[in-house]
């Protein structure tokens, strides 16, 4: 069973979802929670089996799909994907457990389980086609969730979400096909295996074009400025569970793919585009933070804050050193936990008042003290307070990029200022002051079901903020191998300079001395 | 003066163009069928010519099958025409607009 654990992890939710069609409506929720919990414990078992000392891929499985074109069902994980998978199973579990939706619950749970399959699939795929299939499949459940359970503008939002991301991924597909063709030209064999592709050294001009093609697909998913406008609509219209999964997991696909595809495949291009992308990331950070500050709807604040934080992740990724990339991956997980929790929290108040406008609230701290406390913790985590999960990632990302550019990091660092501005302002509007609205005077504090979802998130937020080692170490190990691979593949002198060499400590020392 | 493959192909092309003009010009369905026959025959000449000049029977085979297809097309097509005519009393192309998009 151990050698097939990844396949089980991928397809178990899907099989369960099909079974879910015949489960009775009233027991659908129990069924969903059970399945998601089993899946979550499977993923924990995966972590238990994972060997943190190895930097390469583990639990690899291979089965030919289209042998003539070298398309295989090839899955495997390393430290980078392991924790995002756990995050995905975890959020599906608590998402289903804390579901407050009453309309067509069974359909929703089946959809979520399918979504879980695609998420786990994306993060464990090592074959470009398999990756692409899961990548696109993930759109459909999300489209359905937004379109069926969303707000008044749901059709517009879901269509926009689908078409926008789909367009980007089509360009990515072209890039993949060309990559495979190039591999065929170079070796005489067709292969879509990422691990085989890693061995290719492409000429710079090919790298640039391919990088651009992949970039478009990933950047829309992240979403990077100026491709971000689908996100506020999607979040604004999606039901709570949709926003949670979208923010916590689906957005991470983009940044994960940067690490998995763009960096090791095109190291020279990554260096070439480093500063343009860093500029975009900085615009994302500052500009969307300002937009978040101007919002009137608390959910939009959280949505835009997501974009802003994703900017830091992108920046860390393109630091191209172990500190930066490890930090960005850690921040992916951190941001997943924190923004997921924030969306859950927004959902709590939305369930009670059916409005998300901040002007409708005020003084909630006295009416809902527990809610205010948890919101406060999560807000502070989002702002990046030390000893919360976000700080570790943000610090490492910025630290990493500082190596590449001082000025950029200084500007990007305003993230910690502007982030505080919009978050504190929103918090003040929601929770401080006196209760002015009559409806708010008798709001119920968070109930047990909601606490069931929120308490674990709070625990994780603090635990991983204080002791990030259990997950930072495997991440760092895997990142080291990627950075080393990039350094070995780098051709341009610029890239060789920018990407550190880890394998040769003497070189490193001499480099340090020259600084 | 020798007659080459090109001559036949040009002839085939010219006949095909005549057929095309007919297809576009005719509104009477029966006449449209005529034009279709011309198109088919034009290609037949081309196939036969290529078969001849390249010393290969495949071309003739194609032509042969085309004739078979043409025959069945006429049979089915005329049947359909009769149905249509019984319903509407006309076989004018312009009144067939049920495919409006």
């Amino acid at each position: 069973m151990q050698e097939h654990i990844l396949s089980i992890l991928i397809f178990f939710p899907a099989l369960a979802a099909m079974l879910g069609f015949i489960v009775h409506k009233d027991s659908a929720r129990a069924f969903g929670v059970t399945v998601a919990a089993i899946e979550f414990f499977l993923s924990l078992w995966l972590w238990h089996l994972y060997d943190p000392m190895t930097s390469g891929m583990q639990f690899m499985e291979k089965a030919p799909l289209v042998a003539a074109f070298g398309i295989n069902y090839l899955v495997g994980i390393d430290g980078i994907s392991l924790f995002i998978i756990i995050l995905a199973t975890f959020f599906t579990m608590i998402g289903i457990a804390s579901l407050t939706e009453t309309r067509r619950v069974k359909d929703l749970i089946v959809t979520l389980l399918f979504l879980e399959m695609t998420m786990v699939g994306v993060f464990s795929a090592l074959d470009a086609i398999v990756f692409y299939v899961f990548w696109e499949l993930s759109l459909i459940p999300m489209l359905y969730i937004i379109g069926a359970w969303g707000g008044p503008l749901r059709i517009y939002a879901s269509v926009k979400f689908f078409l926008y991301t789909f367009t980007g991924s089509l360009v990515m597909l072209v890039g993949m096909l060309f990559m495979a063709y190039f591999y065929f030209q170079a070796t005489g064999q067709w292969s879509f295996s990422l691990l085989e592709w890693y061995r290719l050294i492409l000429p710079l001009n090919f790298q640039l074009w391919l990088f651009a093609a992949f970039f478009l697909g990933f950047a829309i998913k992240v979403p990077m400025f100026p491709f971000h406008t689908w996100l506020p609509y999607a979040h604004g219209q999606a039901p709570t569970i949709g926003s949670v999964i979208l923010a916590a997991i689906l957005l991470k696909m983009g940044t994960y793919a940067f690490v998995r595809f763009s960096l090791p495949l095109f190291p020279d291009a990554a260096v070439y585009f480093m500063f343009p992308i860093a500029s975009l990331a900085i615009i994302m950070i500052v500009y969307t933070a300002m937009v978040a500050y101007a919002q009137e709807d608390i959910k939009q604040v959280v949505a835009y804050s997501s974009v802003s934080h994703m900017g830091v992740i992108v920046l860390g990724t393109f630091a191209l050193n172990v500190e930066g990339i490890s930090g960005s991956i850690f921040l992916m997980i951190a941001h997943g936990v924190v923004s997921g929790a924030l969306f859950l929290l927004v959902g709590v108040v939305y369930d009670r008042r059916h409005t998300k406008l901040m002007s409708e609230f005020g003084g909630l701290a006295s009416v809902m003290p527990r809610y205010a406390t948890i919101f406060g913790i999560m807000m502070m985590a989002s702002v990046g307070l030390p000893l919360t999960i976000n700080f570790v990632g943000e610090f490492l990302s910025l630290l990493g990029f500082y190596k590449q550019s001082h000025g950029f990091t200084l500007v990007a660092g305003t993230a910690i200022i502007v982030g505080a501005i919009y978050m504190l302002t929103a918090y003040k509007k929601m929770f401080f002051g006196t209760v002015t609205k009559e409806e708010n005077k008798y709001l119920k504090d968070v109930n047990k079901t909601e606490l069931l979802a929120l308490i674990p998130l709070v625990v994780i937020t603090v635990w991983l903020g204080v002791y990030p080692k259990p997950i930072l170490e495997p991440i760092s190990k895997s990142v080291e191998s990627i950075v080393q691979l990039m350094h070995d593949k780098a051709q341009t002198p610029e890239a060789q300079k920018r990407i550190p060499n880890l394998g040769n400590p003497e070189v490193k020392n001499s480099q340090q001395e020259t600084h | 003066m020798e007659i080459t493959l090109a001559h036949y192909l040009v002839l085939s092309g010219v006949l095909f163009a005549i057929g095309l003009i007919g297809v576009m010009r005719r509104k009477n369905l029966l006449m449209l069928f005529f034009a279709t026959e011309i198109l088919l025959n034009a290609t037949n000449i081309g196939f036969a010519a290529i078969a001849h000049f390249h010393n290969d029977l495949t071309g003739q085979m194609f032509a042969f099958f085309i004739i078979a297809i043409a025959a069945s097309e006429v049979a089915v097509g005329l049947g359909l025409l009769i149905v249509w005519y019984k319903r509407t009393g006309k076989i004018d192309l312009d009144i067939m607009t049920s495919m409006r998009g």
Partner: protein
Amino acid sequence: MFEAIAFYLFAALTIGMFTITVMTSQALYALTAMAAGMIFISAFFFMLGADFLGVVQIIVYTGAVMALYAFGMMFFDTTRTLVEKRNNPRIIFILGVMAAALIVFILVSPIISTHLEARYPIEAAFGNSQAIGMILFTKFLVPFELSAVMLLVAMIAGIVLAGKKMDKSLTLMAEEEIALMSATQAPKDTEEGAH
């Protein structure tokens, strides 16, 4: 020389006949011209050494197809002058000529014609009909049988379509009409059975 004269003669005749077919407003002229054109085309087949094809051409087209069309014409009563609405005849003409020119260019240009190679060479030892028979029942056996089935189907289709009760089309009727029809028909059938 003889070949050239024959080619140009028949080419001129065919083009002329087909032009009449396409352009005339008299259905009868069109039919006649086309029948003539078909026969002239068979001449090319003979010139190209495809004797069997030539014979088939005359039999099928001039014999069977033309007879069908003639029958159709009589049925539709199109012996009168055809009244057809024309719009933009110039565009039609330009498009036709352009298509022809392009096809000719593609076929004649060396790029394609020099790349062709014989796969089933004509054996000089056999006559044309014999050779065709050989190849038709070996290499092209499956397509041949398929086309036979197709012809059978077409024949049945022709009979059924033109048949008696087909003045009512199920596909072109609205749902209610069909329901109405089946409702009225059902008792009638039982009545007939009772008689």
